[in-house]
């Protein structure tokens, strides 16, 4: 195995906010914590594949929390990741055991440290439902919206990167069209509105 740089918690959090260091930081998380998180899922009626899915979800939630500056640092990264993984896995088990999948309630954290993660996970569920709608968009729309909102590229950068659009105005019009389409799908979904209200209620 290739040598992986070691990080303290504060170095790791800083690296996760720096695009150029994110990959190395995630690699460190895999090396240090993957085994622990996998062990938890595998010893609670989960398989290694379940663990892989849940750990990836936990990492997405964790990195999003860190990048949104919502990680308070009251607990260690290890404890926080463990807490997210546990909540996600318990939620998944409940979903599997319940006929009513719409009523997804995360286990309430026993301490304040976990509460932030729980709130974020409720929002994550809401975002996940929107992501399902996002997948229904055309390929060009998906690519464009990811470039705008994930990669944070300017209109000029996108024009340089692709040959799909003649000029900035055509590109901007396409962005409006795609975003309006997604927004309309959200607006038309009653399930999402219920989830959104839940998310707002839990997030406080």
């Amino acid at each position, binding site marked *: *195995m*290739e040598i992986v740089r070691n990080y303290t918690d504060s170095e790791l959090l800083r690296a996760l906010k720096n695009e150029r260091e*994110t*990959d190395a930081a*995630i*690699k460190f998380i*895999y*090396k240090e914590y*993957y*085994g622990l998180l996998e062990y938890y899922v595998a010893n609670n009626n989960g398989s290694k594949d379940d663990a*892989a899915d849940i750990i*990836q*979800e936990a*990492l*997405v939630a964790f*990195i*999003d929390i860190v990048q949104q500056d919502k990680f308070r640092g009251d607990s260690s990264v290890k404890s926080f990741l463990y807490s997210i993984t546990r909540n996600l896995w318990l939620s998944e088990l409940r979903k599997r055991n319940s006929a009513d999948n719409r009523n997804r309630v995360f286990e309430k954290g026993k301490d304040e440290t976990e509460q932030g993660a729980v709130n974020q996970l409720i*929002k*994550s569920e*809401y*975002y*996940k439902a*929107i*992501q399902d709608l*996002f997948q229904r968009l055309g390929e060009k729309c998906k690519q464009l*919206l*990811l470039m*705008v*909102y*994930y*990669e944070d590229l300017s209109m000029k950068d996108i024009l340089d990167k692709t040959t799909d659009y003649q000029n900035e105005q055509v590109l901007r019009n396409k*962005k*409006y069209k795609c*975003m*309006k389409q*997604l*927004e309309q799908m*959200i*607006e038309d979904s009653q399930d999402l509105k219920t989830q*959104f209200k839940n998310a707002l209620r839990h997030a406080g």
Partner: protein
Amino acid sequence: MQDNFTPDVIEQLISFLDGELSPEENEATDKLIQEDAAIKERFENLVAARNAIRVEGLRQKIKGLHQQYYPEVAAAQTAEKETAKVIKPSFGNRAKIILRIAAVFIFAVAGYAVYEYSTTSNESVYADNFIKYQLPVSRGKGQAQQSIDSLFSANNFSGVIEVFKTITDKNQKDYFLAALASLETGDSQSAIDDLKNVQQLNSNSTEKYFEQETDYYLALAYIKAGNIEEAEKQLGIIKANKQHMFYQKTNEISSTKLEILKMKE
């Protein structure tokens, strides 16, 4: 919910979300959102959509990195389990110490064996055991003999070989010096041929010359040529005769190294 706005309002909200409006337009849009519940709800949809897309990008990235990093984690876990299996048997402390010492010893022996194997070659065994032949001073020789002697003494081995070729009636010494000159110039096969001629002449003569020297240098020539089986036969002849002038030297040749050379053949 009221539906009292045109699609242009949504575009305005997207521009507001993306920070593309002028300060005046920004202020006006902000006011619109605050005052109209329906517009506020549509704006919240857009904010959620933007956040969901950002998280989707992150999810795709993590998925890619998982494919990359998980095999390494799995390999490390397997290696850890294998190590645990080796360490698992429960012996007493004394047994553990003995096992550790044995393990160190085995590693040391194995390491030495690997080192010996990798460093032993025909050339290295030959060079370790080659003794430079010093020609004894003699008088009353013919012109060619004087020439070959002086060339040999002067380490002009290619000269020795050239003169040797011109000699029509070659004796044991001619063949012997030519053989050593061939060894010195790296031509082990010619050396073998010439030394065999020395043996041939000696076998047909009552007067034996360079007989014991030929035994030893023929063995070295075989080693250099990679014919270890023939070399061992020659060495066996020497070892069988305690009075042989190369008896001591022959016993110093490592039989382990000869075995290694045979394995490498």
